[in-house]
C-alpha cells in the first residue's frame, strides 16, 4: 500500500489551519481557566465535611465525571435550548461541556492534594491563631497545589485535546478546519495528520515548561 504524501495543499491553505488553531487556543484558554478554578472551589467544598457543602459538590462531580464530554456538548447544543429557551452557540455549548467535565476531574485532584497534607499543618496554623480560611490559603494550598501539579498538567493536556470535540457542533477549531480542507481537496490523510502535528508542536514545549515549573517549586524540598 503506497501513499504519496502531499502536503502542498496543506501549506497553501495554512490560513484555514491558523484560524482553527486560534479558535482551539481560545477554547483551551477559556475551558482550562474555568475548569481549574471551578474545580478548586468544588474540590475545597468536597474536602469540607459540612453536609450542606459536600453533598452538592459530590453530586456535581459524579454527574459530570461519569458522562461523556461529547454527549454533554451535544446536549448543551441541542437539548439545552429546547428545555430552557436559551440559545447556545457552538462555542458556548463546547465551553460548558468541557469546563464542567474539567471541573469535576480537577476537583478530585485538588481534594486528593488537600487530603494528602499532614493534619499537623492544620494544627500548626490553628495554634498560631489562623482561621480555617487563612490556614487553607497560606499553609495547605501552596503545598497541596505543588504536590498535584503533575496531575493537573495531565488534565491540562487532556483539556487542550478535548477542544477537538467541539467539532461535533461545527465550532471552527483546528479539527473542523481540517475537515473542511479534507473535503475540498480529497486529502484526509494529510489534513488530519497536520492536526496531529499541530497539537504536538504546541503541547510539547508547554509540557516542558511545566516540568521546569515543578523544578522551581521543588526547591524548598532540597
Amino acid at each position, binding site marked *: 500500500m503506497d501513499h504519496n504524501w502531499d502536503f502542498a495543499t496543506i501549506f497553501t491553505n495554512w490560513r484555514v489551519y491558523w484560524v482553527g488553531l486560534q479558535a482551539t487556543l481560545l477554547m483551551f484558554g477559556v475551558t482550562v481557566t474555568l475548569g481549574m478554578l471551578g474545580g478548586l472551589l468544588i474540590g475545597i467544598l468536597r474536602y469540607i465535611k459540612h453536609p450542606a457543602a459536600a453533598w452538592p459538590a459530590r453530586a456535581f462531580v459524579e454527574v459530570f465525571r461519569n458522562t461523556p464530554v461529547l454527549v454533554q456538548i451535544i446536549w448543551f447544543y441541542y437539548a439545552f435550548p429546547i428545555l430552557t429557551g436559551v440559545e447556545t452557540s457552538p462555542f458556548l455549548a463546547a465551553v460548558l461541556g468541557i469546563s464542567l467535565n474539567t471541573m469535576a476531574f480537577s476537583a478530585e485532584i485538588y481534594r486528593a492534594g488537600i487530603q494528602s497534607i499532614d493534619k499537623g499543618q492544620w494544627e500548626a496554623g*490553628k*495554634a*498560631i*491563631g*489562623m*482561621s480555617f480560611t487563612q490556614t487553607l490559603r497560606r499553609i495547605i494550598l501552596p503545598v497541596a497545589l*505543588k504536590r498535584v501539579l503533575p496531575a493537573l498538567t495531565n488534565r491540562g493536556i487532556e483539556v487542550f485535546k478535548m477542544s477537538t470535540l467541539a467539532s461535533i457542533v461545527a465550532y471552527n477549531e483546528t479539527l473542523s478546519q481540517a475537515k473542511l480542507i479534507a473535503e475540498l481537496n480529497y486529502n484526509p490523510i494529510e489534513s488530519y495528520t497536520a492536526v496531529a502535528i499541530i497539537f504536538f508542536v504546541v503541547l510539547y514545549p508547554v509540557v516542558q515548561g511545566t516540568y521546569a515549573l515543578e523544578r522551581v517549586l521543588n526547591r524548598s524540598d532540597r
Partner: protein
Amino acid sequence: MSELIRVENLHKSFGTLEVLKGIDLHVNSGETLVLLGSSGSGKSTLLRCINFMETLTSGRILLNGDAIGSETRGKITYKESDLCKLRTRIGMVFQHFNLFPHMTVLQNVMEGQLTVLGRDKAEAAEKSMIQLTRVGLADKAAEFPSRLSGGQKQRVAIARALAMDPDVMLFDEVTSALDPELVGEVLKTMRQLAEEGMTMICVTHELGFAYHVANRVLFLNEGTIHEEGDPQSVLRNPQTKRMKEFLEGHALFKLPE
C-alpha cells in the same frame, strides 16, 4: 504571683470514651508546670483543651481570670473568631514540629505575625530575628526546614510560637520525636525560657527536666490528677502506688550512680 490559667472541672470525651474525668488546675504567671503520665492518661488531651485545639465536653477555662466563651443558661458556647484570638495568646509546640515546608525559617516565624497579628513585614522580620537569636538559630533564617536537624526544627517551632508574644507556652512531648543526642538542645532552650520567666505547661517524659525546671509536677492517671506537688517531693517520694510504678518504669535502665 498572679494566676494566669485556671481549669475548672474539665471533662473531655471522644465518643463514648471519657479521656478527662474532671480536671482542676491552675498555673501562675511565670510558673513551669510539668504534666506526667503514661500514654492514654489524658495529658496531651488536657494540654490541647487549654488552647481549644480540642473542644471541651464540659467545664471551663479562665485566662487571666476571664472565662473563655460566653455562658447562657449553663451552656458555654465558643465563637471560632474568639478562639483564634485566644490561641495567639497561648503558644503551642508539637511533637512533630509541624513547620511549614514551603517557607524559610524566617517566613515560618513571620507567618502568624503577618496574617494574624497584622504586623508589617519589617516589624515581623525584626521580631522573628529576636526570637531566632533567642533559640540560637539566627544563622538559619534563610534555610528551608528540610535542611534542618530535628532539634533545630523544634527550636524554630519554639521561636514561631514565641514570636506571637504569648502569655503562656504549651509543649506537647516536644522531644519525643528527636534523636537522643538532639533532645538536650531543645530542653536547654526550654529551660532558658523558664528561667526568663515564661509561663509554661509541658507534657514530657523527661523526668530530669521535670526535676530541675518544673515548679510543680502533676501526675495524670486515667483522666484524673493522681498526684501533684513540687518535683523534688513527687519524683523522689511518690505517695501513690501508680506514681511509684510509673517512675520505676522510667528508671529501669538507668546508668548506675
